[in-house]
């Protein structure tokens, strides 16, 4: 079965450029605005969408994504609504891959089988669940694969040669390489180290390798994209939303426009990533 994720990475391979993967928090600052942001993404240059599922206690996230999650929850977002968001998005886009990203507890409470069935129906392509390492595969990863949904695993600088095969074993769609030990939104790691790590992972798998955590600018996207199959940007997008919210949460400009402007710049970055090689 060729999934939307597979198809998208195959197409980009033909184009000779890395994917721009953009994360945003579902429901931030409210459902309607957030859906508008999501719908603006592909046109602005996003290749793969990461849809954040808010959680009250996001232990791998920095202050920006923590705050976004709290805004979203305050705005009434629930897991059911985040699933609904995909349904609403798919009305006029059936090609852009959507990966839902978050923490396990809301899915566990929703019910794993119910969640996977609904996610499959509305057109979710993959899942990234931060607090489910390979040791806990029976919880969600294995059922997701059975339901035809990719389970995208995080590999990190602490994932050594010995452990890498275990991490890759049930991974599908792509591999998400976390560029540094730390939380989202930290400073970008040494790009030379990242290039080495991507090479190392690629020697173990044919899956595309995307790099995230710390990429904020078009220039960084260009540099990382020279070796990676995709560049993930999250905190910068969440900040673009936060920056147009006033102290009481009122919008001082259109968050969807702010995000689209940012993504257009990043998209130029990834499109220049391989020019040196092509050229």
């Amino acid at each position, binding site marked *: 079965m060729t999934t939307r994720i597979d198809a998208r990475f195959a197409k980009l391979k033909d184009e000779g450029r890395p994917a721009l993967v953009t994360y945003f928090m579902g429901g931030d600052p409210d459902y309607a605005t957030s859906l508008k942001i999501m719908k603006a993404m592909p046109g602005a240059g996003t290749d793969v969408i990461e849809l954040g599922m808010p959680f009250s*206690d996001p232990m791998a996230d920095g202050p920006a994504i923590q705050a976004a999650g709290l805004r979203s929850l305050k705005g009434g977002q629930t897991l059911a609504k985040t699933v609904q968001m995909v349904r609403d998005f798919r009305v006029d886009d059936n090609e852009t891959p959507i990966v839902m990203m978050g923490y396990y507890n809301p899915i566990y409470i*929703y019910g794993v089988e119910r969640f996977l069935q609904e996610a499959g129906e509305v057109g979710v392509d993959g899942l990234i669940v931060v607090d489910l390492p390979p040791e806990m595969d029976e919880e969600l990863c294995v059922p997701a694969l059975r339901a035809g949904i990719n389970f995208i695993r995080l590999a990190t600088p602490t994932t050594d040669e010995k*452990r890498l095969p275990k991490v890759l074993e049930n991974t599908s769609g792509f591999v998400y390489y976390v560029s540094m*030990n730390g939380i989202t939104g930290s400073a970008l790691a040494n790009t030379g180290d990242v290039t080495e790590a991507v090479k190392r992972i690629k020697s173990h798998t044919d899956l595309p390798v995307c790099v995230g955590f710390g990429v904020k600018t078009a220039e960084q996207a260009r540099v990382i994209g020279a070796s990676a199959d995709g560049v993930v940007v999250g905190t910068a997008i969440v900040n673009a939303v936060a920056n147009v919210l006033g102290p009481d949460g009122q919008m001082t400009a259109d968050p969807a426009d702010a995000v689209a402007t940012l993504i257009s710049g990043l998209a130029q970055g990834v499109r220049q990533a391989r020019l040196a090689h092509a050229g």
Partner: protein
Amino acid sequence: MNKPIEPNSFRTGPDEQGMFGIFGGRFVAETLMPLILDLQQHWDEAKTDPEFQAELKSLSTYYAGRPSKLYFAEGLTRHLGGAKIYLKREDLNHTGSHKINNCLGQILLAKRMGKTRIIAETGAGQHGVASATVSARFNLPCVVYMGATDVERQKPNVFRMKLLGAQVNPVSAGHGTLKDAMNEALRDWVTNVHDTYYLIGTAAGPHPYPEMVRDFQAVIGTEAREQIQEQEGRLPDAIIAAVGGGSNAIGLFHPFLDDRDVRIIGVEAGGRGLDGVEHCASMSAGQPGVLHGNRTYLLQDKDGQIIEGHSISAGLDYPGVGPEHSFLRDTKRVEYMPILDDEALEAFQLTTRVEGIIPALESAHAIAQAVKLAPTMGKDQVIIVNLSGRGDKDVHTVAGMMGMEI
């Protein structure tokens, strides 16, 4: 009295995956997994290493002051007019609570692993103080994460930690309590995984912490079991401890789990009552979920978002509980009951007046349960209550509750 013989011991958990039944596990980010596996390997080796055990034993004896006494509380017993009440005096340990037992064990493990920086979370500050203490003793830098609300209500302990050379980082997220401190400690750990040892203070978190912390605290129950047999010539009829994360409770309970005639009661923080959200009784009013590396009973809404609880006692102000307690709840080996803020406060004052012992507010919850239970029991019966810590740190809070200024 012929009870059916139960085939399984309650003391065999966790399994190799770190599970106590459906509870426990290793729900952490990939960055932490290699370290957690490394920790497990070192812990497995240390458990059976005579040298490690000897060093721990020596520190426990000469530095922490073990064994702690099992004290017959004559004043409380007379006042309540029922079962004899014994207090396991963990308040007399160095640093004033049971927390030192675990900290000594883990700091030796941190050293063994070659880690050069210690981080810890704290609620009431007892674990923070114990962590700062062992870090000072072993000359390691220590960073303690503490909720901003708790920093405010546990000022004496904050100052103690600073005196001991620790850096106290207030956490203002959420309600600024233990849960938020633990989130922030996990974020620090994931960032500084190469040199940092996370000294978790309670029997919760990813495997092997719940097992390891329990084993370091089980000295409480092991001693109490021997002491009561020396002093009373038999096992107790009931044992009681307060449960926040649940380390003092599992430490007392574990050696008694297979003594089926001993009634075991864990006391949760009932706060202002279980009707609303102002309590921390995760096992009485919550449901199983996944937080801070393990599956356990949690206070949460129907969307799986964690609810901030409330307790007068900062050490019990946590919306979860150690996974082994969840297992013992579901298997019904241990009964878990809530005690309200007001009941704990009364027990605090009672113990202070009739025993001349100022208990920690956490421990006062356990005493409050004994206050309810003892009068219903015979004078020849025996209750052991874990007096997990001393209450000097709580005098500001208690004064506030009593409408006094000091």
